[in-house]
Protein backbone atom coordinates (compact mmCIF):
# COMPACT_ATOMS: atom_id res chain seq x y z
CA UNK A 1 0.00 0.00 0.00
CA UNK A 2 1.99 2.85 -1.30
CA UNK A 3 0.56 6.26 -0.91
CA UNK A 4 2.38 9.01 -2.63
CA UNK A 5 1.90 12.51 -3.84
CA UNK A 6 0.79 12.19 -7.47
CA UNK A 7 3.87 13.85 -8.95
CA UNK A 8 6.30 13.25 -6.11
CA UNK A 9 9.79 12.25 -7.13
CA UNK A 10 10.90 8.66 -6.45
CA UNK A 11 13.10 9.79 -3.55
CA UNK A 12 10.06 11.18 -1.78
CA UNK A 13 8.06 7.98 -2.18
CA UNK A 14 7.79 6.22 1.12
CA UNK A 15 6.59 2.68 1.60
CA UNK A 16 4.19 3.43 4.38
CA UNK A 17 0.58 4.42 4.66
CA UNK A 18 0.26 8.12 5.16
CA UNK A 19 -2.28 9.17 7.70
CA UNK A 20 -2.64 12.76 6.43
CA UNK A 21 -5.14 12.14 3.57
CA UNK A 22 -7.30 9.99 5.82
CA UNK A 23 -7.41 12.66 8.48
CA UNK A 24 -8.28 15.34 5.92
CA UNK A 25 -11.01 13.40 4.16
CA UNK A 26 -12.03 11.45 7.25
CA UNK A 27 -14.01 14.28 8.82
CA UNK A 28 -16.21 14.69 5.75
CA UNK A 29 -16.59 10.94 5.30
CA UNK A 30 -17.55 10.36 8.94
CA UNK A 31 -19.98 13.26 8.69
CA UNK A 32 -21.69 11.77 5.64
CA UNK A 33 -21.68 8.30 7.17
CA UNK A 34 -23.50 9.67 10.20
CA UNK A 35 -25.99 11.93 8.40
CA UNK A 36 -26.68 9.98 5.19
CA UNK A 37 -25.32 6.40 5.22
CA UNK A 38 -26.51 5.60 8.73
CA UNK A 39 -30.02 7.02 8.17
CA UNK A 40 -30.12 5.18 4.85
CA UNK A 41 -29.39 1.85 6.55
CA UNK A 42 -31.83 2.72 9.33
CA UNK A 43 -34.39 3.46 6.62
CA UNK A 44 -33.81 0.10 4.96
CA UNK A 45 -34.10 -1.55 8.36
CA UNK A 46 -37.31 0.38 9.12
CA UNK A 47 -38.80 -0.84 5.85
CA UNK A 48 -38.91 -4.38 7.28
CA UNK A 49 -40.78 -3.28 10.41
CA UNK A 50 -44.24 -1.99 11.25
CA UNK A 51 -42.89 1.08 13.12
CA UNK A 52 -45.14 4.04 13.76
CA UNK A 53 -44.22 7.72 13.87
CA UNK A 54 -45.38 8.19 17.46
CA UNK A 55 -43.03 5.56 18.82
CA UNK A 56 -40.45 4.67 16.15
CA UNK A 57 -38.52 2.15 18.25
CA UNK A 58 -41.55 0.07 19.21
CA UNK A 59 -42.00 -1.62 15.83
CA UNK A 60 -41.41 -5.31 15.22
CA UNK A 61 -40.05 -7.07 12.15
CA UNK A 62 -42.60 -8.05 9.53
CA UNK A 63 -40.28 -9.37 6.80
CA UNK A 64 -41.25 -8.30 3.32
CA UNK A 65 -44.86 -7.51 4.31
CA UNK A 66 -44.50 -3.78 3.56
CA UNK A 67 -43.05 -4.47 0.14
CA UNK A 68 -45.77 -6.98 -0.73
CA UNK A 69 -48.41 -4.56 0.49
CA UNK A 70 -46.98 -1.77 -1.67
CA UNK A 71 -46.52 -3.80 -4.84
CA UNK A 72 -50.02 -5.22 -4.63
CA UNK A 73 -51.60 -1.86 -3.78
CA UNK A 74 -52.94 0.19 -6.66
CA UNK A 75 -52.03 3.44 -4.89
CA UNK A 76 -48.29 2.76 -4.80
CA UNK A 77 -48.11 1.46 -8.35
CA UNK A 78 -50.00 4.53 -9.46
CA UNK A 79 -47.43 6.73 -7.70
CA UNK A 80 -44.66 4.91 -9.63
CA UNK A 81 -46.55 5.61 -12.84
CA UNK A 82 -47.07 9.25 -11.81
CA UNK A 83 -43.34 9.58 -11.05
CA UNK A 84 -42.46 8.24 -14.49
CA UNK A 85 -44.90 10.58 -16.24
CA UNK A 86 -43.64 13.55 -14.24
CA UNK A 87 -40.01 12.60 -14.92
CA UNK A 88 -40.39 12.03 -18.65
CA UNK A 89 -42.42 15.22 -19.11
CA UNK A 90 -40.09 17.47 -17.11
CA UNK A 91 -36.86 16.00 -18.52
CA UNK A 92 -38.05 16.30 -22.12
CA UNK A 93 -39.57 19.72 -21.49
CA UNK A 94 -36.39 21.05 -19.86
CA UNK A 95 -34.08 19.55 -22.49
CA UNK A 96 -36.08 20.84 -25.45
CA UNK A 97 -36.77 24.30 -24.04
CA UNK A 98 -33.30 24.63 -22.51
CA UNK A 99 -31.50 23.59 -25.70
CA UNK A 100 -33.70 25.78 -27.87
CA UNK A 101 -33.05 28.74 -25.57
CA UNK A 102 -29.31 28.11 -25.71
CA UNK A 103 -29.35 27.99 -29.53
CA UNK A 104 -31.34 31.20 -29.71
CA UNK A 105 -29.11 33.09 -27.29
CA UNK A 106 -25.78 31.73 -28.59
CA UNK A 107 -23.89 34.22 -30.75
CA UNK A 108 -24.54 37.88 -31.38
CA UNK A 109 -27.94 39.28 -30.47
CA UNK A 110 -28.99 42.82 -29.58
CA UNK A 111 -29.45 43.06 -25.79
CA UNK A 112 -28.02 39.58 -25.31
CA UNK A 113 -26.70 40.16 -21.77
CA UNK A 114 -30.08 41.37 -20.51
CA UNK A 115 -31.98 38.62 -22.32
CA UNK A 116 -29.67 36.00 -20.89
CA UNK A 117 -30.04 37.33 -17.36
CA UNK A 118 -33.84 37.30 -17.53
CA UNK A 119 -33.82 33.82 -19.04
CA UNK A 120 -31.68 32.50 -16.17
CA UNK A 121 -33.75 34.29 -13.52
CA UNK A 122 -36.36 31.51 -12.94
CA UNK A 123 -33.62 29.17 -11.82
CA UNK A 124 -32.54 31.65 -9.14
CA UNK A 125 -35.98 31.99 -7.57
CA UNK A 126 -36.35 29.90 -4.37
CA UNK A 127 -38.89 27.10 -4.77
CA UNK A 128 -41.15 28.40 -2.02
CA UNK A 129 -41.46 31.81 -3.70
CA UNK A 130 -41.98 30.08 -7.04
CA UNK A 131 -44.79 27.96 -5.59
CA UNK A 132 -46.51 31.01 -4.13
CA UNK A 133 -46.54 32.89 -7.43
CA UNK A 134 -47.61 29.86 -9.50
CA UNK A 135 -50.43 29.14 -7.07
CA UNK A 136 -51.63 32.69 -7.63
CA UNK A 137 -51.23 32.44 -11.41
CA UNK A 138 -53.19 29.15 -11.38
CA UNK A 139 -55.81 30.44 -8.90
CA UNK A 140 -59.17 29.15 -10.09
CA UNK A 141 -61.11 32.38 -9.58
CA UNK A 142 -58.57 35.22 -9.81
CA UNK A 143 -55.56 33.68 -11.55
CA UNK A 144 -54.22 35.10 -14.78
CA UNK A 145 -53.87 31.61 -16.28
CA UNK A 146 -57.68 31.42 -16.10
CA UNK A 147 -57.98 34.75 -17.92
CA UNK A 148 -55.73 33.39 -20.65
CA UNK A 149 -57.65 30.13 -21.10
CA UNK A 150 -60.92 32.06 -21.14
CA UNK A 151 -59.51 34.43 -23.72
CA UNK A 152 -58.58 31.41 -25.83
CA UNK A 153 -62.13 30.10 -25.52
CA UNK A 154 -61.10 27.14 -23.38
CA UNK A 155 -63.10 28.36 -20.42
CA UNK A 156 -61.94 28.51 -16.81
CA UNK A 157 -59.46 25.69 -16.19
CA UNK A 158 -59.09 24.55 -12.59
CA UNK A 159 -55.33 24.11 -12.87
CA UNK A 160 -54.79 23.02 -9.28
CA UNK A 161 -58.23 21.54 -8.54
CA UNK A 162 -59.00 19.54 -11.68
CA UNK A 163 -57.22 16.12 -11.68
CA UNK A 164 -56.83 16.37 -15.46
CA UNK A 165 -54.71 19.51 -15.20
CA UNK A 166 -52.80 19.03 -11.93
CA UNK A 167 -49.87 17.22 -13.53
CA UNK A 168 -49.63 19.72 -16.39
CA UNK A 169 -49.60 22.61 -13.91
CA UNK A 170 -46.78 21.03 -11.89
CA UNK A 171 -44.77 20.14 -15.00
CA UNK A 172 -45.05 23.69 -16.36
CA UNK A 173 -43.81 25.17 -13.10
CA UNK A 174 -40.93 22.67 -12.92
CA UNK A 175 -39.87 23.26 -16.52
CA UNK A 176 -40.06 27.00 -15.96
CA UNK A 177 -37.62 26.71 -13.06
CA UNK A 178 -35.19 24.14 -14.50
CA UNK A 179 -34.99 24.77 -18.27
CA UNK A 180 -32.64 27.73 -17.57
CA UNK A 181 -30.22 25.34 -15.88
CA UNK A 182 -30.14 23.16 -19.03
CA UNK A 183 -29.72 26.33 -21.09
CA UNK A 184 -26.60 27.35 -19.15
CA UNK A 185 -24.99 23.94 -19.51
CA UNK A 186 -25.80 23.59 -23.21
CA UNK A 187 -24.59 27.14 -23.80
CA UNK A 188 -21.23 26.23 -22.29
CA UNK A 189 -21.06 23.11 -24.47
CA UNK A 190 -21.99 25.09 -27.61
CA UNK A 191 -19.16 27.48 -27.00
CA UNK A 192 -16.70 24.60 -27.19
CA UNK A 193 -17.85 23.52 -30.67
CA UNK A 194 -14.86 24.28 -32.94
CA UNK A 195 -15.40 27.10 -35.41
CA UNK A 196 -13.89 25.06 -38.29
CA UNK A 197 -16.85 22.69 -38.17
CA UNK A 198 -19.23 25.52 -38.97
CA UNK A 199 -16.94 26.71 -41.73
CA UNK A 200 -17.03 23.28 -43.37
CA UNK A 201 -20.83 23.10 -43.44
CA UNK A 202 -21.09 26.68 -44.60
CA UNK A 203 -19.02 25.80 -47.62
CA UNK A 204 -21.37 22.89 -48.25
CA UNK A 205 -24.31 25.30 -48.11
CA UNK A 206 -26.15 23.38 -45.39
CA UNK A 207 -29.28 24.94 -43.86
CA UNK A 208 -29.70 25.64 -40.14
CA UNK A 209 -31.45 22.38 -39.32
CA UNK A 210 -28.87 20.22 -41.13
CA UNK A 211 -26.06 22.09 -39.42
CA UNK A 212 -27.71 21.48 -36.04
CA UNK A 213 -28.35 17.79 -36.67
CA UNK A 214 -25.01 16.92 -38.22
CA UNK A 215 -22.57 19.27 -36.54
CA UNK A 216 -23.92 20.76 -33.32
CA UNK A 217 -25.92 17.85 -31.93
CA UNK A 218 -23.09 15.26 -32.04
CA UNK A 219 -20.82 17.78 -30.32
CA UNK A 220 -23.18 18.54 -27.47
CA UNK A 221 -24.67 15.03 -27.19
CA UNK A 222 -22.36 13.86 -24.35
CA UNK A 223 -23.28 16.94 -22.32
CA UNK A 224 -26.97 16.41 -23.03
CA UNK A 225 -26.76 12.81 -21.84
CA UNK A 226 -25.20 13.89 -18.53
CA UNK A 227 -27.82 16.59 -18.10
CA UNK A 228 -30.57 14.09 -18.90
CA UNK A 229 -29.26 11.74 -16.21
CA UNK A 230 -28.98 14.51 -13.61
CA UNK A 231 -32.47 15.80 -14.42
CA UNK A 232 -33.91 12.29 -14.26
CA UNK A 233 -32.39 11.52 -10.87
CA UNK A 234 -33.47 14.91 -9.55
CA UNK A 235 -37.01 14.38 -10.88
CA UNK A 236 -37.30 11.07 -9.04
CA UNK A 237 -36.49 12.73 -5.74
CA UNK A 238 -38.10 16.14 -6.29
CA UNK A 239 -40.44 17.02 -3.47
CA UNK A 240 -40.83 20.68 -2.66
CA UNK A 241 -42.29 22.07 -5.86
CA UNK A 242 -44.96 19.34 -6.07
CA UNK A 243 -45.76 19.41 -2.38
CA UNK A 244 -46.13 23.18 -2.27
CA UNK A 245 -48.20 23.45 -5.47
CA UNK A 246 -50.62 20.56 -5.10
CA UNK A 247 -49.62 18.52 -2.02
CA UNK A 248 -49.88 15.49 -4.32
CA UNK A 249 -53.42 16.33 -5.41
CA UNK A 250 -55.87 17.03 -6.93
CA UNK A 251 -57.08 13.50 -6.04
CA UNK A 252 -53.58 11.98 -6.12
CA UNK A 253 -52.98 13.27 -9.67
CA UNK A 254 -49.46 14.41 -8.70
CA UNK A 255 -48.66 11.93 -5.92
CA UNK A 256 -45.18 10.79 -6.91
CA UNK A 257 -43.21 8.21 -4.93
CA UNK A 258 -41.58 10.78 -2.65
CA UNK A 259 -44.89 12.52 -1.97
CA UNK A 260 -46.30 9.08 -1.17
CA UNK A 261 -43.38 8.41 1.23
CA UNK A 262 -43.85 11.73 3.00
CA UNK A 263 -47.62 11.37 3.37
CA UNK A 264 -47.31 7.80 4.55
CA UNK A 265 -44.76 8.82 7.19
CA UNK A 266 -45.95 12.17 8.45
CA UNK A 267 -49.70 12.15 7.70
CA UNK A 268 -50.48 8.48 8.32
CA UNK A 269 -47.59 7.78 10.70
CA UNK A 270 -46.65 4.49 9.02
CA UNK A 271 -42.86 4.73 9.13
CA UNK A 272 -42.27 1.15 8.01
CA UNK A 273 -44.46 1.42 4.95
CA UNK A 274 -43.04 4.85 4.10
CA UNK A 275 -39.47 3.55 4.34
CA UNK A 276 -40.30 0.61 2.05
CA UNK A 277 -41.77 2.98 -0.53
CA UNK A 278 -38.64 5.14 -0.26
CA UNK A 279 -36.36 2.14 -0.79
CA UNK A 280 -38.30 1.13 -3.91
CA UNK A 281 -37.98 4.71 -5.20
CA UNK A 282 -34.24 4.63 -4.60
CA UNK A 283 -33.95 1.31 -6.47
CA UNK A 284 -35.73 2.90 -9.40
CA UNK A 285 -33.17 5.73 -9.63
CA UNK A 286 -30.34 3.19 -9.26
CA UNK A 287 -31.72 1.27 -12.24
CA UNK A 288 -31.84 4.45 -14.30
CA UNK A 289 -28.24 5.30 -13.37
CA UNK A 290 -27.02 1.82 -14.32
CA UNK A 291 -28.88 1.98 -17.63
CA UNK A 292 -27.35 5.41 -18.23
CA UNK A 293 -23.80 4.17 -17.72
CA UNK A 294 -24.53 1.20 -20.00
CA UNK A 295 -25.86 3.46 -22.76
CA UNK A 296 -23.00 5.89 -22.23
CA UNK A 297 -20.41 3.13 -22.63
CA UNK A 298 -22.00 1.89 -25.84
CA UNK A 299 -22.17 5.41 -27.22
CA UNK A 300 -18.52 5.99 -26.34
CA UNK A 301 -17.51 2.74 -28.03
CA UNK A 302 -19.60 3.52 -31.10
CA UNK A 303 -17.89 6.89 -31.47
CA UNK A 304 -14.47 5.40 -30.86
CA UNK A 305 -13.75 8.12 -28.31
CA UNK A 306 -11.98 7.29 -25.10
CA UNK A 307 -13.96 8.57 -22.15
Amino acid sequence: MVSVMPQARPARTKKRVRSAPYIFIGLAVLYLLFFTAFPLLTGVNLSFTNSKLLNPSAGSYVGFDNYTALITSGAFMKSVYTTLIYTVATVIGCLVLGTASALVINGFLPGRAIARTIMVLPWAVPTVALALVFRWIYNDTNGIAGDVTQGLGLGQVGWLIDPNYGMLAVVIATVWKLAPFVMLIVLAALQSVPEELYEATRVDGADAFTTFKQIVLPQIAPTMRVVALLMTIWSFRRFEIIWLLTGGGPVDATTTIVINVYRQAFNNGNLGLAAAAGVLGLLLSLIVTVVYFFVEQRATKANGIES
Partner: protein
Amino acid sequence: MIGRRNLSIGVRSLLALVLVILAGFPVFWMINTAMTPVGDLYSNNQRIIPDFSRTLNIFQVLVSDSPFLRWLGNSALVAGGTTLLSLLLACLAAYALSRYKFVGKGLMTFGFFATQMLPEALLIVPLYSMFMTLGLLNELYGLVLVNTAFAMPVAVFLLKSAMDTVPYEIEESARVDGCNALTILQVMFIPLIAPSLAAAAVITFFDGWNEYLFATTFIHDTANWVASTGLASFIGEFTTPLDMVFSGAIVFTIPAAIFFLLMQRKIVAGLTAGSVKG
Protein backbone atom coordinates in the same frame (compact mmCIF):
# COMPACT_ATOMS: atom_id res chain seq x y z
CA MET B 1 -23.40 30.62 -33.98
CA ILE B 2 -25.64 28.30 -35.86
CA GLY B 3 -28.07 31.19 -35.93
CA ARG B 4 -25.57 33.84 -36.83
CA ARG B 5 -24.87 32.16 -40.10
CA ASN B 6 -28.16 30.61 -41.04
CA LEU B 7 -31.02 32.25 -39.24
CA SER B 8 -31.41 35.93 -39.54
CA ILE B 9 -30.73 37.89 -36.39
CA GLY B 10 -34.28 39.18 -36.67
CA VAL B 11 -35.84 35.75 -36.27
CA ARG B 12 -33.57 34.94 -33.35
CA SER B 13 -34.31 38.25 -31.70
CA LEU B 14 -38.01 37.55 -31.98
CA LEU B 15 -37.62 34.07 -30.50
CA ALA B 16 -35.42 35.50 -27.73
CA LEU B 17 -38.10 38.06 -26.96
CA VAL B 18 -40.75 35.34 -26.62
CA LEU B 19 -38.46 33.32 -24.33
CA VAL B 20 -37.63 36.38 -22.24
CA ILE B 21 -41.34 37.11 -21.76
CA LEU B 22 -42.07 33.49 -20.83
CA ALA B 23 -39.13 33.27 -18.44
CA GLY B 24 -39.65 36.66 -16.89
CA PHE B 25 -43.41 36.59 -16.48
CA PRO B 26 -43.80 34.79 -13.14
CA VAL B 27 -41.17 37.01 -11.50
CA PHE B 28 -42.83 40.07 -13.00
CA TRP B 29 -46.17 38.81 -11.70
CA MET B 30 -44.74 38.35 -8.23
CA ILE B 31 -43.63 41.99 -8.23
CA ASN B 32 -46.90 43.17 -9.75
CA THR B 33 -48.96 41.29 -7.16
CA ALA B 34 -46.93 42.76 -4.31
CA MET B 35 -47.71 46.25 -5.66
CA THR B 36 -51.46 45.71 -6.06
CA PRO B 37 -53.91 46.59 -3.29
CA VAL B 38 -55.56 43.43 -1.93
CA GLY B 39 -59.03 44.60 -2.89
CA ASP B 40 -58.07 44.74 -6.57
CA LEU B 41 -56.49 41.27 -6.41
CA TYR B 42 -59.69 39.57 -5.33
CA SER B 43 -62.02 41.51 -7.61
CA ASN B 44 -60.24 40.18 -10.70
CA ASN B 45 -58.87 43.66 -11.17
CA GLN B 46 -55.12 43.12 -11.17
CA ARG B 47 -53.38 45.63 -13.44
CA ILE B 48 -51.01 44.36 -16.11
CA ILE B 49 -48.72 47.37 -15.69
CA PRO B 50 -47.59 47.56 -12.05
CA ASP B 51 -48.33 50.64 -9.98
CA PHE B 52 -44.74 51.67 -9.36
CA SER B 53 -45.76 54.29 -6.83
CA ARG B 54 -46.27 51.33 -4.51
CA THR B 55 -42.70 50.03 -4.87
CA LEU B 56 -41.75 50.83 -1.31
CA ASN B 57 -44.77 48.88 -0.03
CA ILE B 58 -42.81 45.75 -0.78
CA PHE B 59 -40.30 46.51 1.90
CA GLN B 60 -42.90 47.37 4.53
CA VAL B 61 -43.04 43.68 5.26
CA LEU B 62 -39.67 44.15 6.94
CA VAL B 63 -40.84 46.81 9.36
CA SER B 64 -44.37 45.53 9.95
CA ASP B 65 -45.12 43.56 13.10
CA SER B 66 -45.18 40.26 11.18
CA PRO B 67 -42.60 37.71 12.32
CA PHE B 68 -41.09 37.80 8.83
CA LEU B 69 -37.93 39.66 9.83
CA ARG B 70 -37.27 37.10 12.54
CA TRP B 71 -37.76 34.24 10.04
CA LEU B 72 -35.31 35.89 7.63
CA GLY B 73 -32.81 36.16 10.47
CA ASN B 74 -33.25 32.45 11.25
CA SER B 75 -32.73 31.63 7.57
CA ALA B 76 -29.52 33.66 7.57
CA LEU B 77 -28.28 31.83 10.69
CA VAL B 78 -29.06 28.40 9.23
CA ALA B 79 -27.55 29.30 5.85
CA GLY B 80 -24.46 30.88 7.42
CA GLY B 81 -23.91 27.89 9.68
CA THR B 82 -24.34 25.51 6.75
CA THR B 83 -21.77 27.47 4.75
CA LEU B 84 -19.12 27.51 7.49
CA LEU B 85 -19.45 23.85 8.38
CA SER B 86 -19.65 22.71 4.74
CA LEU B 87 -16.59 24.69 3.65
CA LEU B 88 -14.51 23.54 6.60
CA LEU B 89 -15.21 19.88 5.87
CA ALA B 90 -15.09 20.32 2.08
CA CYS B 91 -11.73 22.15 2.00
CA LEU B 92 -10.01 19.36 3.88
CA ALA B 93 -11.69 16.60 1.87
CA ALA B 94 -11.00 18.32 -1.46
CA TYR B 95 -7.32 18.76 -0.51
CA ALA B 96 -7.00 15.04 0.19
CA LEU B 97 -8.72 14.14 -3.10
CA SER B 98 -6.66 16.57 -5.13
CA ARG B 99 -3.20 16.00 -3.64
CA TYR B 100 -2.95 12.46 -2.33
CA LYS B 101 -3.27 8.93 -3.63
CA PHE B 102 -4.70 6.61 -1.04
CA VAL B 103 -6.56 3.36 -0.70
CA GLY B 104 -10.32 3.88 -0.88
CA LYS B 105 -10.10 7.16 -2.78
CA GLY B 106 -12.31 5.95 -5.63
CA LEU B 107 -14.88 4.55 -3.25
CA MET B 108 -15.01 7.78 -1.27
CA THR B 109 -15.38 9.88 -4.44
CA PHE B 110 -18.25 7.65 -5.48
CA GLY B 111 -19.74 8.02 -1.99
CA PHE B 112 -19.72 11.81 -2.29
CA PHE B 113 -21.50 11.57 -5.65
CA ALA B 114 -23.97 8.98 -4.41
CA THR B 115 -25.30 11.38 -1.75
CA GLN B 116 -26.66 13.48 -4.62
CA MET B 117 -28.93 10.62 -5.58
CA LEU B 118 -30.48 9.92 -2.19
CA PRO B 119 -34.05 11.16 -1.89
CA GLU B 120 -34.41 13.41 1.15
CA ALA B 121 -37.91 12.00 1.54
CA LEU B 122 -36.45 8.56 2.32
CA LEU B 123 -33.75 9.85 4.67
CA ILE B 124 -36.08 12.21 6.47
CA VAL B 125 -37.95 9.35 8.14
CA PRO B 126 -34.91 7.86 9.95
CA LEU B 127 -33.38 11.34 10.41
CA TYR B 128 -36.54 12.45 12.17
CA SER B 129 -36.30 9.66 14.73
CA MET B 130 -32.51 10.23 15.05
CA PHE B 131 -33.05 13.92 15.71
CA MET B 132 -35.81 13.15 18.18
CA THR B 133 -33.42 10.90 20.15
CA LEU B 134 -30.60 13.46 20.01
CA GLY B 135 -32.88 16.35 20.96
CA LEU B 136 -32.16 18.20 17.70
CA LEU B 137 -35.78 18.73 16.65
CA ASN B 138 -36.92 22.36 16.83
CA GLU B 139 -33.30 23.57 16.90
CA LEU B 140 -31.81 25.76 14.19
CA TYR B 141 -28.41 24.06 14.50
CA GLY B 142 -30.16 20.76 13.79
CA LEU B 143 -31.05 22.21 10.37
CA VAL B 144 -27.42 23.31 9.91
CA LEU B 145 -26.25 19.75 10.56
CA VAL B 146 -28.66 18.13 8.11
CA ASN B 147 -28.29 20.79 5.38
CA THR B 148 -24.51 20.41 5.51
CA ALA B 149 -24.82 16.71 4.67
CA PHE B 150 -26.50 17.62 1.38
CA ALA B 151 -24.59 20.81 0.53
CA MET B 152 -21.05 19.74 1.39
CA PRO B 153 -20.46 17.09 -1.36
CA VAL B 154 -21.10 19.69 -4.09
CA ALA B 155 -18.55 21.99 -2.44
CA VAL B 156 -16.06 19.09 -2.35
CA PHE B 157 -16.29 18.58 -6.13
CA LEU B 158 -16.07 22.29 -6.84
CA LEU B 159 -13.05 22.84 -4.59
CA LYS B 160 -11.29 19.68 -5.76
CA SER B 161 -11.40 20.79 -9.41
CA ALA B 162 -10.12 24.22 -8.37
CA MET B 163 -7.25 22.70 -6.37
CA ASP B 164 -6.35 20.43 -9.31
CA THR B 165 -5.34 23.53 -11.26
CA VAL B 166 -2.84 24.72 -8.63
CA PRO B 167 0.71 23.79 -9.77
CA TYR B 168 2.60 21.29 -7.63
CA GLU B 169 5.78 23.40 -7.59
CA ILE B 170 4.13 25.86 -5.26
CA GLU B 171 3.70 23.41 -2.45
CA GLU B 172 6.96 21.59 -3.17
CA SER B 173 8.90 24.70 -2.22
CA ALA B 174 6.79 25.17 0.88
CA ARG B 175 7.35 21.55 1.85
CA VAL B 176 11.11 22.03 1.54
CA ASP B 177 10.74 24.97 3.89
CA GLY B 178 9.23 22.56 6.39
CA CYS B 179 5.58 23.64 6.21
CA ASN B 180 3.08 20.91 7.04
CA ALA B 181 0.10 20.10 4.84
CA LEU B 182 -2.38 22.06 6.90
CA THR B 183 -0.27 25.22 6.72
CA ILE B 184 0.16 24.75 2.98
CA LEU B 185 -3.60 24.40 2.59
CA GLN B 186 -4.26 27.50 4.65
CA VAL B 187 -1.54 29.80 3.41
CA MET B 188 -1.08 28.76 -0.20
CA PHE B 189 -4.24 27.06 -1.46
CA ILE B 190 -6.99 29.12 0.07
CA PRO B 191 -5.85 32.41 -1.53
CA LEU B 192 -5.28 30.72 -4.91
CA ILE B 193 -8.69 29.10 -5.08
CA ALA B 194 -10.53 32.07 -3.56
CA PRO B 195 -12.95 32.49 -6.51
CA SER B 196 -14.05 28.86 -6.33
CA LEU B 197 -14.25 29.10 -2.57
CA ALA B 198 -16.57 32.07 -2.96
CA ALA B 199 -18.71 30.11 -5.43
CA ALA B 200 -18.86 27.14 -3.06
CA ALA B 201 -19.81 29.50 -0.24
CA VAL B 202 -22.67 30.94 -2.28
CA ILE B 203 -23.94 27.51 -3.33
CA THR B 204 -23.93 26.12 0.20
CA PHE B 205 -25.39 29.34 1.63
CA PHE B 206 -28.39 29.16 -0.65
CA ASP B 207 -28.82 25.45 -0.13
CA GLY B 208 -29.45 26.42 3.47
CA TRP B 209 -31.41 29.57 2.59
CA ASN B 210 -33.87 27.87 0.20
CA GLU B 211 -34.25 24.56 2.02
CA TYR B 212 -37.84 23.74 2.94
CA LEU B 213 -38.41 20.00 3.51
CA PHE B 214 -36.26 19.52 6.61
CA ALA B 215 -37.21 22.92 8.00
CA THR B 216 -40.93 22.24 7.78
CA THR B 217 -40.61 18.72 9.21
CA PHE B 218 -38.15 19.36 12.04
CA ILE B 219 -39.16 22.81 13.30
CA HIS B 220 -42.59 23.11 14.91
CA ASP B 221 -42.05 26.18 17.06
CA THR B 222 -43.09 29.21 14.93
CA ALA B 223 -40.44 31.41 16.58
CA ASN B 224 -37.78 29.10 15.14
CA TRP B 225 -39.28 28.95 11.67
CA VAL B 226 -37.08 29.97 8.77
CA ALA B 227 -38.31 32.19 5.94
CA SER B 228 -39.11 29.28 3.61
CA THR B 229 -41.41 27.61 6.13
CA GLY B 230 -42.87 30.94 7.19
CA LEU B 231 -43.71 31.86 3.61
CA ALA B 232 -45.09 28.42 2.83
CA SER B 233 -47.37 28.70 5.87
CA PHE B 234 -49.24 31.45 4.01
CA ILE B 235 -50.40 28.85 1.47
CA GLY B 236 -54.04 28.08 2.04
CA GLU B 237 -54.24 30.67 4.81
CA PHE B 238 -56.31 33.75 4.12
CA THR B 239 -55.68 36.13 7.01
CA THR B 240 -52.39 37.57 5.73
CA PRO B 241 -52.96 40.06 2.88
CA LEU B 242 -51.74 38.67 -0.42
CA ASP B 243 -49.66 41.73 -1.32
CA MET B 244 -47.85 41.27 1.99
CA VAL B 245 -47.22 37.58 1.24
CA PHE B 246 -45.72 38.45 -2.14
CA SER B 247 -43.65 41.24 -0.64
CA GLY B 248 -42.19 38.64 1.70
CA ALA B 249 -41.54 36.32 -1.23
CA ILE B 250 -39.67 39.10 -3.07
CA VAL B 251 -37.54 40.06 -0.09
CA PHE B 252 -36.75 36.36 0.37
CA THR B 253 -35.89 35.97 -3.33
CA ILE B 254 -33.71 39.07 -3.85
CA PRO B 255 -30.51 37.88 -2.14
CA ALA B 256 -30.77 34.40 -3.65
CA ALA B 257 -31.42 35.79 -7.14
CA ILE B 258 -28.56 38.29 -7.05
CA PHE B 259 -25.97 35.73 -5.95
CA PHE B 260 -27.20 33.04 -8.33
CA LEU B 261 -27.01 35.40 -11.27
CA LEU B 262 -23.51 36.53 -10.29
CA MET B 263 -22.28 32.99 -9.79
CA GLN B 264 -24.23 31.09 -12.47
CA ARG B 265 -21.24 29.71 -14.36
CA LYS B 266 -19.46 28.53 -11.22
CA ILE B 267 -22.62 26.91 -9.93
CA VAL B 268 -23.17 24.96 -13.13
CA ALA B 269 -19.54 23.85 -12.99
CA GLY B 270 -19.95 22.73 -9.39
CA LEU B 271 -23.15 20.82 -9.97
CA THR B 272 -21.83 18.94 -12.97
CA ALA B 273 -18.17 18.50 -11.93
CA GLY B 274 -18.94 15.42 -9.90
CA SER B 275 -20.77 13.61 -12.64
CA VAL B 276 -18.89 14.80 -15.70
CA LYS B 277 -15.43 14.17 -14.36
CA GLY B 278 -16.04 11.55 -11.68
